[in-house]
């Protein structure tokens, strides 16, 4: 079991508030990724869960027991540190045995479990080595093995892949995801890397400025970003965000901005300042005047090509649209010259609208014809 409930958890350092009223529930077997930019409070949150930092306010429950004041050694959690924190004076075998030794586990049992876990992460041949004699990837495996050896209620991981090179990171990422599936245990994983979050998580908690910005599956976060921040953080190149105005024209909802015109669907709405978000892969690029350049619904953006970047598998075209720079993903083989005028198109269903002042997502409710036509989506409070 490993069901963790965070209730209004906050932490301040002197006058700086690092984590503000975060409430979320991690169900048993979840792989929750705490995602966010540097300084968003994700590591502080993890250290509070681990018992290494005391919360300023709020409470924590593990499997129904309040552990807010429990010392970390009583919490039955395991953690993999960014630095790995392998005890440098102990061999790999003794590092793995340490959590069992301090719990006075029987020697035969310790030996059996150390060997089993070493086999599981394929470090059986390294057991007699000291940490300084290991490569970065091997150290990472030992750190994971030390967490696994004890069968804790949940695994906490603080950016465990950040010290590995790109190729090893991809391979280890897949192994960790595989490990989570095999064990079925609860994982709480801190990273600033959106690829790690998207590929491994069953749930992502996106943090910004110490607050929970959005909580949901990777698909939910990507397909329905709950705020301008969420839309801008996930995806590379980032979502194009354009300040625009929402209004009604000829019985249809329209979004207008300099060089941008979008007709959404039939309906009525009061004028509203919004931010229009379009992912680069949802934009198509056309020469002006071509038949595909004038869709009846959806958005049309008129711009001039600024730069074309060849990424090998595809190209990213950057265009000047009004005062904004808009990125478009395009297949290789199309030839786009900087300086050429183009028209960019996107389907209405792929447009995201956010309130300009609150930054929250606006959802269309078709049945509320005469009431307020767009409602702001609040972050859900449980997974």
């Amino acid at each position: 079991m490993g069901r963790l409930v965070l209730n209004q958890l906050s932490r301040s350092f002197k006058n700086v508030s690092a984590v503000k009223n975060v409430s979320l529930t991690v169900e048993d077997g979840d792989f929750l990724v705490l995602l966010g930019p540097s300084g968003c409070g994700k590591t502080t949150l993890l250290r509070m869960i681990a018992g290494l930092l005391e919360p300023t306010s709020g409470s924590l429950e593990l499997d129904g027991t309040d552990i807010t004041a429990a010392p970390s050694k009583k919490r039955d959690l395991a953690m993999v540190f960014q630095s790995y924190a392998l005890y440098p004076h102990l061999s790999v075998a003794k590092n793995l045995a340490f959590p069992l030794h301090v719990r006075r586990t029987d020697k035969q049992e310790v030996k059996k479990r150390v060997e089993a876990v070493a086999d599981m992460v394929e470090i059986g041949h390294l057991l007699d080595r000291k940490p300084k004699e290991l490569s970065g990837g091997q150290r990472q495996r030992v750190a994971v093995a030390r967490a696994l050896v004890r069968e804790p209620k949940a695994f906490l991981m603080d950016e465990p892949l950040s010290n590995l090179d790109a190729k090893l990171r991809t391979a280890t990422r897949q192994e960790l995801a595989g490990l989570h599936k095999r064990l079925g245990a609860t994982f709480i994983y801190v990273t600033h890397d959106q690829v790690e979050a998207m590929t491994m998580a069953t749930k992502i908690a996106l943090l910004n400025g110490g607050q929970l910005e959005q909580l949901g599956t990777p698909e939910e976060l990507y397909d329905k970003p709950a705020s301008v921040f969420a839309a801008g953080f996930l995806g590379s190149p980032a979502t194009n965000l354009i300040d625009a105005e929402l209004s009604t024209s000829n019985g249809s909802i329209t979004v207008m901005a300099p060089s941008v015109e979008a007709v959404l669907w039939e309906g009525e709405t009061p004028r509203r300042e919004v931010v229009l978000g379009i992912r680069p892969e949802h934009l198509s690029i056309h020469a002006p005047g071509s038949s595909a350049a004038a869709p009846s619904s959806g958005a049309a953006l008129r711009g001039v090509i600024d730069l074309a970047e060849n990424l090998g598998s595809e190209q990213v075209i950057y265009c000047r649209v009004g005062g904004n720079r808009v990125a478009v993903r395009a297949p290789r083989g199309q030839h786009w010259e900087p300086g050429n005028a183009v028209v960019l198109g996107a389907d209405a269903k792929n447009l995201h609208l956010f309130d300009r002042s609150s930054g929250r997502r606006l959802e269309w409710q078709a049945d509320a014809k005469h009431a307020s036509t767009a409602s702001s989506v609040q972050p859900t409070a449980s997974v």
Partner: protein
Amino acid sequence: MFIETAGPAAGIAPAGPAGLPATRRPTRRALSPYLYILPAVVLLLVWTYWPLGQTVNLSFNDWNLIPTKPKQYVDVQKYAKVLSLPELHQALINTGLYILAFLGISVALPLVFALLSRKVQGKARTAYQALIFVPFLITPVASSAIWRWLFAPEGGTIPAIAAALGAPMGNIFRDPGSSMMAVIVIVGWQMLGFGVLVVSAGLAGISPDYAAAASIDGASGRQITWRIIIPLLSPSLVFLSLMTILLSAQWTYPIIDLVTQGGPGNSSTNIYYLLYQFGFRNFDAGLSSAAGTLFFLGFGLIALVFVELSERLSFYDN
């Protein structure tokens, strides 16, 4: 038909900078490291190795330090004599006792103080450590004077307190049973701060992640201290022990000279003070040098053992 593609053309690496003829540069470059270390080598030769050679040379001669009197070669007679002297045996035993006492005061006690001072937070910790370190900055002459006043049989604060508590003490510097203890107290008071400083620096160099990891692994505070912190501190402790063993005879020398002059009856002397007495009180340069050479070899061996030990104990925390 397949045609294998060629690799990038060879020989396109940029040529070296033009200018100086290729033949002159390597010589100058090869010479420069030696030029950099030359000043240090010269100083070492003049101030360390030349006197060392002179000492070894003197130890085979009979000479009373009078420049007009010629040195007389006496083979190993001085070594035979110095080894048979009861003063030397007493000084060796005393030196051993001093070292044991200082291992306690400047290694074990600082470890306890430094570990305890981790419980003190913020500015209070800095103030606490500064207070312990300050005596190290006081010159031995000044501290000897202060302690002599404190222990003065007539009007000294400590004897006055002892008398008030019903345990009158005499002149501790003139009592064979307590003169060595007096030297240990004064030197220990000065050296404690140095030990705390070295151990605190060692502690500061240990990543807090280890203690955090051990705590999550289920270790208690005591287990973390004994199984993680102290083993990781061992390079600092080995260094401090080596310093104590090699230098305690030097640290005690000025205090012995200032408060007891080795007495009464050699009860508080040590090997360095004895060397000084052989050479500059008895004017027997050969005897003093023979003893000096023997101690040099003895301490050299101890140093080698410790260097080897510290190599084995260095974990390179990364």
